């Protein structure tokens, strides 16, 4: 039993803003104040701990709705980039395993650095179903945090087949089966139709063009998946990486996608990459369309987004959007990995460097911030860098500082390309995020969008995932405060004390959804599976032996 006293609580979900209150923790949960007898008995058993937080900032543990942290892509990124690790070494310490860091850190170091930053839940953004077992293997070595993964489904053979056949039942059953057998948490859709087209050596633009083997448009795929996702009652809405991502002028595709899905719940991820305007007159052809996108978000109550904020410096781009990585390779000349996964998806990896002085990179940076500042309701917009695509997750505290301090933004702008002002109005935006708003975009909002009722708040019954930051004495200190919380509690156990990790590995939970489905589906797909996959369906499901600590998040 732990009593946290004298903390200043920011818990937006429970409408607590800077409230000084006790928090009581028992086992893994937050509880109401126990009775005097209970407290007495805990004291007698030596299991009572009281921590005086001395008016420090208390928030729920951070929740990252979209990052690449485990599985085949990030791991290939690790192999690809020995140069990324060489100067960022983490020695073993006590019970903590060693590793390396930088943009593609090892699994242990990923767990450490999230924890040290006060984050306790992270969603792996994209897993190829056939390699899901690999993700769960890594989850077993990803300490402290709770995690789950979104399974790629926008270019899946059976998905396309059932949509083509207009067989809604089979589609739903298949998706539910897929989530179950891969141990996934939700559905991820990446460039629907476009990845299959890439494998066929074709290119699709927008959401109307047809062209792949199944002769389906992205429109048809998106609609069917959004509908199935809602009908399955999955905790998290369909998680979409839009078509045409990264191309100038793509904001129109994004808007068509939002119009198309206006009646469904949806989460558009790293929307910064989908908010680009096209100006044929301009030499760089590239302008911000943050206004149009923000307006859309402001008027859609079934929509949430995360940003994918650009951070200057080295990144390792990686996505299931194979053709996007080909394009990035052609653009940068950097080393390029592509892996097509049979029947399911594609993927690619290209290292890049976002430069402060580069005008296009600067505009991308500004678009992300414009969106943060122009989307009115913080419950609709979440902090991500699409780690490690737009920047490493370790940059979050500096992004928080950009959001909370206009002065800091102006200082950054002064170090950037002098024509930046011609392409974005970021310098004029006066809005500064409050601590409450920061709490929303970094924990309460993402938790709600993920459908994690026990996370993102510190009300009674919530998971005891709590972060304690030093008091914010001045705006200059924002980044330092958010980078180095003093205390982090995960599932009721202190994992960070005095800003340092306790030297004992703990394993967090794997979060999964287990939607119901008609068991007959495995027979329906059986014949094609046998003919066109290279493994048998019997060897496909991820067995329970890969889950040490599982939590099933209920479907509605």
């Amino acid at each position, binding site marked *: 039993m732990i009593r946290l006293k004298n903390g200043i609580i920011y818990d937006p979900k429970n409408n607590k803003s800077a409230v000084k209150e006790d928090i009581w923790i028992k086992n893994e949960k937050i509880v109401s104040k126990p009775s005097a007898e209970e407290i007495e008995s805990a004291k007698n058993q030596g299991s009572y701990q009281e921590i005086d937080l001395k008016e420090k900032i208390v928030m729920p543990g951070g929740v990252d709705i979209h990052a690449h942290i485990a599985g085949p892509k990030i791991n290939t990124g690790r192999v690809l980039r*020995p*140069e990324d690790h060489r100067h960022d070494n983490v020695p073993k310490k006590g019970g903590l395993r060693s590793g390396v860091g930088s943009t593609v850190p090892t699994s242990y170091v990923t767990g450490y650095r999230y924890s040290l930053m006060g984050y306790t839940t992270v969603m792996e953004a994209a897993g190829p179903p056939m390699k899901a077992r690999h993700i769960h293997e890594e989850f077993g070595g990803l300490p402290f945090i709770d995690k789950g993964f979104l399974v790629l489904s926008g270019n899946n053979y059976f998905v396309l087949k059932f949509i083509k056949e207009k067989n809604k039942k089979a589609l739903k059953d298949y998706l539910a089966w897929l989530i179950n057998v891969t141990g996934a948490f939700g559905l991820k859709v990446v460039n629907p139709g476009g990845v299959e087209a890439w494998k066929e050596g074709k290119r699709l633009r927008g959401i109307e063009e047809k062209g792949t083997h199944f002769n389906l448009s992205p429109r048809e795929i998106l609609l069917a998946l959004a509908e199935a996702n809602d009908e399955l009652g999955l905790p998290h809405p369909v998680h979409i990486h839009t078509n045409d991502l990264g191309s100038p002028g793509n904001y129109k595709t994004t808007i068509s996608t939002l119009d198309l899905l206006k009646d469904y719940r949806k989460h558009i991820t790293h929307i910064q990459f989908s908010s680009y305007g096209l100006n044929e007159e301009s030499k760089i052809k590239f302008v911000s369309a943050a206004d149009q996108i923000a307006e859309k978000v402001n008027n859609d109550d079934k929509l949430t987004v995360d940003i994918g904020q650009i951070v200057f410096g080295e990144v390792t781009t990686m996505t299931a959007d194979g053709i996007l990585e080909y394009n990035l390779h052609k653009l940068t000349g950097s080393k390029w990995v592509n892996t097509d996964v049979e029947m399911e998806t594609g993927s690619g990896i290209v290292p890049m460097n976002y430069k402060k002085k580069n005008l296009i990179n600067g505009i991308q940076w500004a678009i992300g911030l414009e969106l943060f500042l122009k989307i009115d309701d913080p419950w609709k917009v979440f902090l991500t860098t699409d780690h490690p695509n737009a920047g490493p997750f370790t940059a979050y505290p500096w992004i928080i500082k950009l959001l909370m301090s206009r002065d800091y933004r102006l200082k950054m702008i002064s170090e950037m390309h002098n024509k930046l002002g011609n392409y974005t109005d970021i310098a004029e935006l006066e809005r500064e995020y409050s601590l409450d708003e920061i709490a929303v975009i970094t924990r309460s909002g993402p938790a709600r969008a993920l459908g994690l009722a026990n996370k993102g708040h510190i009300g009674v019954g919530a998971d005891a995932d709590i972060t304690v930051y030093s008091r914010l004495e001045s705006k200059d200190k924002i980044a330092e405060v958010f980078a180095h919380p003093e205390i982090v509690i995960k599932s009721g156990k202190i994992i960070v004390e005095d800003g340092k990790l306790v030297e004992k590995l703990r394993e967090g939970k794997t979060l999964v959804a287990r939607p119901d489905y008609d068991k007959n589906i495995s027979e329906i797909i059986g014949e094609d599976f046998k003919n066109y996959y290279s493994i048998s369906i019997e060897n496909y499901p991820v067995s329970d032996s890969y889950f040490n600590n599982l939590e099933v998040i209920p479907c509605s």
Partner: protein
Amino acid sequence: MSKLKLILKKDNPSLIQPEGKTAGKLPVEAENISPDITAEKTISEIAELTLLAGRKKYKLKDFFKIEGEPSQNIFIDGELDNFKYIGAGMTTGEIFINGSTGMHTGSEMSGGKIEVNGDTGDWLGAEMQGGYIKVNGNTGNYVGSAFRGDKLGMNRGVIYIKGSAGSFLGSRMRRGEIIVSGSCGDMAGAQMVAGSIYLFGKAGKRTGAAMKRGTIISAHQLEMLPTFNYNISYYPEFLKIAFAHLKNEFKIDIPQNMFSGYYHRYTGDNTEIGKGEILIWKEG
């Protein structure tokens, strides 16, 4: 001039002696043997400097008899072929090794001078930023190269090898000069971005593979890759200046005949931008 003298003890903790007999030698990581460090310390502090043999930490005095005084000028005596990182990262001063050294000698150094009166291991002067390395014997692979995955190898500085060199000499080098009097292995100048490599002995196969820019000068005929073009035979005047500079400033022996005769000029690698040049000396 004051000098710090380190004399390797015959019996030192790096020996692997499973049953009393020496079977091998542990690698010793000796980045602490660097003028930047020794100049600032007293002799007793120098004696306490950490050297890592395998995974065990030892002190410098466990390996060396220490003479002289703290100095930016270090003289080392002994067969140090299992000692890695001597002079790695040094910015100034001088190390003279009377004997051989192991891998990573002078890697990432940015100034000062290292002379090895013996052989060295692989990665000599890898990713060096400046300074001068002279090896009187032979050296290993990856001289002046980039480390695994890195885009750029040595970026300024001069490496002079009087003996022979291994493979991947100057691979991915960005700037600077490498001179090899003896033979060298395969892939000299592979993927080099710029800089100059002088090969006075015979070279292995695939010299200049995938080079972007830069110059390789060879005193002997090379087996040219099909991705290079022959352009012209001439005497490139800039060579006389370059040779004079190497001779006067670094006391490098330039074969006399290379000052005359003429050179076949090839450009490539045509799978890349094709702006590299290979100059092969021909008797006049």
